[in-house]
């Protein structure tokens, strides 16, 4: 038998993700309760070599598509939303690297290192004083010959202390406008972090999205050659909304699975008579299918637009991606509420096979990060000139 047969790559991505999900599920309640990093799940992601799958095969990865990565988010989302969200956030950063790093020798080398060493990437886009608008920066990167330096009051850097590298935004230079931004990769030994904010939240407690003052110094070649505006429009917007939606769909899917188990168990006990909540199950499955269709359409829209930077930067594409985010983040709450009605007190209680408290709390983050009001405002602005795409065939 060849050595390759033992390598995880010989198995399907889903099989590998399922093994990670098994580990994530075992620790999900403890991660949630303690508000701690899902270490076991992320170590399993590394062991299954899932962190580098997006890197093209030519650079040592597996060239996984966004749809495949979204499917992994769905699988992990059913087990532990925080683990799934860490995976999604990492892959969003990896997409910036894969889609925009190939024209730079340093970034291509970093891609190889990511695949080889299974680096965990974190993101630092928010900043004190900009009110959550990641397309504006106050801090500016200082480039001095071969070296760049950056200090940023980053109000949120999810799992910063566990990451192997941080991709961080800033103004492109000292005189740049707030929207003229650059993104830079800093490796773990190239920065210090001073904690400024805790992360004691209602849900998504394991993402450890604490605030830090970031201070970094690195070779200037680690600044992305493309302006952040293009990275944001052409990869971050779509990958964020689509992969987050995958995580949220996973949370809702597990809530539905729990409520279905409840209905089935009750029906078995009552010799086939369906319990009163059963009609809600039909409604919940109906809504779940809507979320799935919405996500699949979004993934197809991205896949079709991917090779065309003009299409990716177009308003119609931005509206389509915004709509995926709005619809999935709103609908999962309805679904979980229905699941809770079905499971009743057994769903309301912690520690039962039908508990839904964690699902409900985790799902509430979806409308807030990024605020749906902000997204709807952006879409409304675009609709001043852009007509919605109503055709079925595009």
């Amino acid at each position: 038998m060849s050595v390759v047969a033992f390598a995880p790559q010989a198995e399907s991505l889903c099989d590998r993700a399922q093994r990670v999900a098994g580990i994530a599920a075992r620790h999900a309640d403890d991660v949630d309760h303690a508000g701690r990093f899902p270490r076991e799940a992320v170590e399993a992601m590394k062991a299954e070599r899932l962190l580098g799958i997006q890197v093209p095969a030519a650079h040592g990865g597996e060239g996984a598509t966004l749809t495949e990565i979204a499917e992994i988010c769905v699988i992990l989302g059913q087990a532990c939303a925080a683990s799934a969200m860490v995976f999604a956030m990492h892959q969003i950063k990896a997409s910036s690297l894969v889609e925009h790093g190939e024209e730079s020798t340093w970034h291509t080398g970093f891609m190889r290192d990511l695949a080889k060493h299974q680096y965990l990437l974190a993101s630092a886009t928010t900043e004190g004083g900009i009110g959550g608008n990641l397309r504006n920066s106050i801090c500016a990167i200082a480039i001095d010959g071969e070296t760049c330096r950056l200090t940023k009051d980053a109000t949120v850097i999810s799992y910063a202390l566990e990451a192997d590298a941080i991709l961080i935004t800033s103004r492109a230079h000292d005189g740049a406008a707030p929207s003229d931004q650059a993104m830079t990769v800093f490796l773990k030994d190239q920065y210090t972090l001073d904690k400024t904010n805790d992360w004691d939240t209602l849900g998504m407690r394991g993402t450890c999205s604490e605030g830090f003052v970031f201070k970094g110094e690195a070779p200037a070649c680690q600044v992305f050659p493309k302006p952040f505006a293009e990275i944001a429009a052409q990869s971050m917007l779509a990958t964020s909304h689509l992969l987050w939606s995958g995580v949220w769909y996973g949370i809702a899917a597990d809530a539905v699975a729990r409520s279905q188990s409840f209905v089935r168990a009750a029906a078995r006990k009552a010799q086939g008579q369906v319990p009163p909540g059963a009609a809600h199950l039909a409604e919940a499955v109906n809504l779940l299918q809507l979320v799935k269709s919405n996500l699949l359409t979004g993934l197809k829209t991205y896949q079709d637009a991917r090779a065309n930077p003009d299409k990716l930067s177009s308003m119609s594409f931005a509206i389509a991606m915004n709509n995926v985010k709005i619809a999935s983040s709103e609908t999962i709450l309805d679904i979980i509420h229905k699941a809770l009605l079905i499971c009743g007190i057994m769903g309301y209680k912690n520690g039962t096979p039908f508990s839904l408290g964690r699902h409900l709390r985790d799902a509430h983050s979806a409308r807030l990060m990024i605020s749906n009001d902000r997204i709807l405002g952006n879409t409304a602005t675009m609709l001043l000139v852009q007509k919605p795409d109503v055709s079925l065939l595009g």
Partner: protein
Amino acid sequence: MNETIRDILTKVGGLPVPVTDLADDSDLYTSGLSSFASVQVMLAIEEKFDVEFPDNLLNRKSFASIAAIEGTIRQILKAQEAA
């Protein structure tokens, strides 16, 4: 047309730099044109030139510079004449 575009940018572009400092090919986004302001610019141009931007031209590239905006308007006017 160039002057009219510059007037519109001055009025609704919300740029942190004077429009007179910009070359025709200066990148408007790196000069501080926000996506909200770019929509205001589009609306003002639609009003001023009595045109409507087709969906395929509503992307960053069409509004990346004064020269790009001019090219976009000329393209639409030409298409309207041909129609």
